[in-house]
């Protein structure tokens, strides 16, 4: 098993209603110098979260004790830019298991799925509902139901379904990853490789 299984997650959420959040903001390049996958959560949103003297920026949402939970709700086009998987590691290491957005950048979405963070894409209207629900009650809970592929605002019961292909869904439910799958078909790959001209 490559990572924690994901089934149903019920949690309050942390709202970050900024669009085009790029992976350089999620984790700046100067924190990519480790050779092990450890401690990236400390530098999640480093330059939005801390002043140059390392004191916390009071107005940033991760420093506001009003908000907590295992779900991060981001604005449109979340995770654009660099392919650094460190961004997904930082999100996971900080304690998030799910990111909700009305639109994800491709590589970030892929990286999340590969390490066991569930990206949930919702409609713009539902995204707005989530932000306003959290604004009126920071403790409001979201239920992410992977088997049913639904996201529900617990306070109002409003719900929306989300997409995930059945292969990735099965992986998330069981904590499998692509390497487990690929290694099992190695001889088929080796046969294929003999047909490649270069």
């Amino acid at each position: 098993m490559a990572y924690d299984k994901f089934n149903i997650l019920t949690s309050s959420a942390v709202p970050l209603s900024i669009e085009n959040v790029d992976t350089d903001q999620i984790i700046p390049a100067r924190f990519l110098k480790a050779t092990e996958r450890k401690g990236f959560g400390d530098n999640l949103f480093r330059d939005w979260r801390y002043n140059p003297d390392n004191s916390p920026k009071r107005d940033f949402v991760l420093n506001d004790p009003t908000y907590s939970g295992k779900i991060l709700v981001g604005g449109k086009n979340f995770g654009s830019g660099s392919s650094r998987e460190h961004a997904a590691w930082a999100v996971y290491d900080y304690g998030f298991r799910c990111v909700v957005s009305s639109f994800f950048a491709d590589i970030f979405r892929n990286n999340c799925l590969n390490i066991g963070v569930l990206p949930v894409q919702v409609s713009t209207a539902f995204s707005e509902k989530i932000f306003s629900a959290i604004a009126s009650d920071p403790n409001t809970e979201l239920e992410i139901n992977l088997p049913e592929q639904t996201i529900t605002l617990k306070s109002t019961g409003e719900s929306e379904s989300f997409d995930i292909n059945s292969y990735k869904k099965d992986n998330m439910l069981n904590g499998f990853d692509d390497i487990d799958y690929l290694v099992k078909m190695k001889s088929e790959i080796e046969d294929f490789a003999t047909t490649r001209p270069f």
Partner: protein
Amino acid sequence: MSKTLFDKVWDSHVVRNINDGPDVFFIDRHFIHEVTSPVAFLGVKSRNNTVLYPERTFATADHNTPTINQHLPVEDPLSANQLKALEENAAEWGISHWGLGHRNNGIVHVVGPENGITLPGATIVCGDSHTSTHGAFGAIAFGIGTSEVEMVLTTQCIMQPKPKKMRINVNGKLGFGVTSKDVALYIIAKLTTSGATGYFVEYAGDVFENMTMEGRMTVCNLSIEMGARGGMIAPDEKTFEYIKGRTHTPKAAAWDTAMEYWKTLKTEEGAFFDKELTFNASDIEPMITYGTNPGMGMGITNNIPNASDVEGGDATYKKSLGYMEFSEGDSMIGKEVDFVFLGSCTNGRIEDFRAFASIVEGRKKADNITAWLVPGSHIVEDKIKEEGLLDIITEAGFTLREPGCSACLAMNDDKVPSGKLAVSTSNRNFEGRQGPGSRTLLASPLVAAATAVTGVVTDPRTLLK
């Protein structure tokens, strides 16, 4: 059914198709560098796997390397540790390694094509989003995460759903002082940074046909900045001429066989695209960005748009201009600049240095400008010297540094200080990209050169002969 260039290359690399899931996708060539590979090698070991085809992976050190005194030990212990890990992992598994000081060392997306590793019809990945560069040769090339680097090392495959297809046509003749960089920044400004997310792009039309291979690489490199996984251009005589005789290209009979295949790599008449866009070359000016993503760009003679005239959230737009210390309606021309960076996988090739030299020749670097001129590789560096460009730029008061990614992502010491403004030929103007608090204006090598000699943002057409 008629096929696109992309269909032809993609379909010929599918090992297995999973129902309601991704394709098991075979990778011909795999590049690795020091930053995104160490954890992948740890994974190979911890699962008791091996590297299946070490001869299909190529390692080069570039992201955190210093650009001066490369013959001395790397001072930053964390960077040194990553470089050591790359060297040791490559040695352990029998992977080609071009470390600091190696003649072939340089930025992964510059040295791949230079050494003939990049070929038409190939599939190429690297743990770096600008892997899209290699699409200039008619390859399918894109960036991957570290988990996928481990997949390629272990099985030479990744698992990817086939993206949708977009064709972007640019027709006509580019104006005076308008370069491939401007074409790319123009398209990104039109599409926004998420306009091509979920798509793979084919660039077509006479503007790309008439472009040099260097120019095509610049365009394909920036595909990721509009959200596309990659972009590609059909190979033609120019492509074949570029790759012929390079170290890793097929030779003799293998070349002839390859050529037969490569000549079939074209989109057929009537092939389906999910989306098609067409632009006129004559509408494109030298471009410059004014915000904190590459989609926030405009013709250099324009003024910064009002929030009400742009797509997206008002709050996000104002946050971005606030960071840049700019206001709606500002003109960019004449703004005082502190740093100029020529280099990166976007604009660190010989053509970019020729363009820069064409403007600074006979002029002097402005006193207020700190300039970093960083070639993409030692091969580029050698050409700069051979062609006499070094004399021109030295005479103008500039110095040439050693190859690497440098100030594009500022993982080494080439950091723009907080609050300072840089005109940069790189690919990202994100907050703090070139150093914490740095402010970046993306532009072509011509705009960078014009700014470097005047000290303020300058339209290069006013200085070009």
